[in-house]
């Protein structure tokens, strides 16, 4: 089974082209995106995107390119991420479950748990353990 890598991208949203360019970094290297979730974090446009990306040989290049994309502040690879899936039902209840358990209009949230991050920002790579 193909390993899934979880990536967190922090950047500045000026318009939805930002999201296009984040996704484009993977598209241009023939990669897929299993899931993507994001939101505006602050009023001045700081935007956080999480992606679940099936690993390929192009992963490192895609991440490096993304970390050098104008508007992108940094890219974090959550190295040891384990993803828990939560399904928010139509009635608002939240259950821990698998994606196939979600019905139409249920929202699925992917919550990565991780302790090790590799950060790339304009070509500079740094790593840390967060625990």
């Amino acid at each position, binding site marked *: 089974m193909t390993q899934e890598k979880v990536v967190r991208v922090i950047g500045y949203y000026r318009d939805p082209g930002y999201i296009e360019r984040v996704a484009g970094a993977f598209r241009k290297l023939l990669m897929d995106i299993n899931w993507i979730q994001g939101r505006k974090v602050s009023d001045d*446009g700081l935007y956080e995107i999480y992606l679940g990306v099936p690993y390929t040989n192009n992963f490192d290049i895609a991440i490096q390119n993304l970390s050098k994309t104008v508007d992108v502040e940094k890219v974090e690879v959550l190295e040891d991420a384990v993803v828990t899936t939560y399904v928010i039902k139509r009635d608002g209840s939240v259950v821990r479950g698998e994606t196939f358990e979600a019905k139409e209009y249920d929202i699925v949230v992917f919550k990565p748990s991780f302790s090790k991050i590799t950060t*790339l920002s*304009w*070509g500079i*790579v740094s790593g840390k353990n967060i625990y």
Partner: protein
Amino acid sequence: MPSGARILVDSLKREGVKVIFGIPGLSNMQIYDAFVEDIQNGELRHVLMRHEQAAAHAADGYARASGVPGVCTATSGPGATNLVTGLITAYWDSSPVIAITGQVPRSSIGKMAFQEADAMGVFEHITKYVVEVKKIEEIPLWVKNAFYIATTGRPGPVVVDIPRDIFYEKMDEVKWPEKPIVRGYKEFPTIIDRQKLKKAAEILINAERPIILAGTGVVWSNATQEVLELAELLHMPIISTFPGKSAIPHDHPLYFGPMGYYGRAEASMAALESDAMLVVGARFSDRTITSYDEMIETRKKFIMINIDPSDGERAIKVDVNLVGNAKILLKELAKAVIELGMKNDHSAWLKRLKEYKEYYAQFYYHDEPNKLKPWKVLKTIRNAIPRDAIVTTGVGQHQMWAEVFWEVLEPRTFLSSTGMGTMGFGLPAAMGAKLAKPDKVVVDLDGDGSFLMTGNNLATAVDEHIPVLSVVFDNRTLGLVRQVQDLFFNRRVVGVDYGPSPDFVKLAEAFGALGYNATSYEEIEKSIKAAIREDMPAVIRVPIDKDELALPTLPPGGRLKQVILRDPRKGS
């Protein structure tokens, strides 16, 4: 109260812009109205091109020749989309170009308005950055930001798309930004890591066969002198990538030519036989290093100096990755070498490379009666123009001949679309280069196929008095494609041969340019000298045999060692 258009013009002037290449239309004509007086008083020059692709190429040629960004403008819709090829050409060759595109009014965007194109969507993946200005207040800062983004880090083209209703708005007071403010953007650092510099110096000093591979970054960082000084200090040879050819004077005794797919065989052999390679301002492009395995198998040490830190972590693992400006880092590296002291005498290594050069020369310089040989045509042109003349090329066999045989004698005098391989680059880039360096002779080495892609801009060259010389290597075919079909598709040549149209001399004269049909080397020399004297745009048509091959070359997907030196159609 200045209008948005006026603010845009003033913003460009504040960035030092003197020339704008473009075509006006519904969505950018307000800019033109705003700069009428600037043109009349000589503070700005506008060059009306005949196609927006050429406007982008001209801005690109201007940037490459001068070192400062070139500026082009187009209207919305088809004007903007016509810029695509020109801008991706600049992007792939890391050239700073600013494109100002008009856009339909904000209230019309997204509603399939007349001449509307999604400029953001079109350009976001083929330029370094594209920004849509949303209100008049943003113009000064985003013009400043555009120049900043285009010229820092790895240089590249930036598009500023402005809805035309903003051009009509007015502002009470303009706040001119002191500095750019681009969130989510950082200049690549120059890191002076003493330990890494020492390690790099040790590798070079201890190597028996060290070599420098110079790339485009040497040109953009103006580091030619530093490369030569380091090479002289270590008594080590220099080769280049194809675009890096513009960095090194070819008459320097330590320079052995460009390596790669259509490069000089001795340069490629030198690259393979070296035991330590200092890569300066180059990435490991597939046209330069045609087989990564082949290079890795040499087990040599690699040192890379590159503005972009991640270029040292790609296909080939680099032993020492020095990040930053080549000019600064080469100086530091030279100091580190001096501190450690020289160890090896590289005379034997250099002698070997000279022997390679002499050996391979037997394959390059064949002469044939009654035929104009490309190497000799180029030599004739070289001898007829000044040392600091600037040369551009189109794309095709003529470009490959220029790669092998054109002698660059001064840095920044060889401009070619090497990354994207864009046919039609030559003439408009030459025009841009001429405007950047008006006192230099500028020659476009072109092919008949390539020239006609943007040849209509000869009209602009005549009208605007931009006296460039186009030498058209006329073999009546798309020569490089024909060559590949001939050699690697079982001689199944199809869809590449042109007929007798056009007569290039009559074509040139129809545009009001000088036209010459040069059927001998003497006529080539005479035509060039006459054209320079006349100080007019000129086309010199040089007939080249259709069967002439661009050699050396490699088989598709081939390794450098598989270099083809002789015409395989004639047997061994």
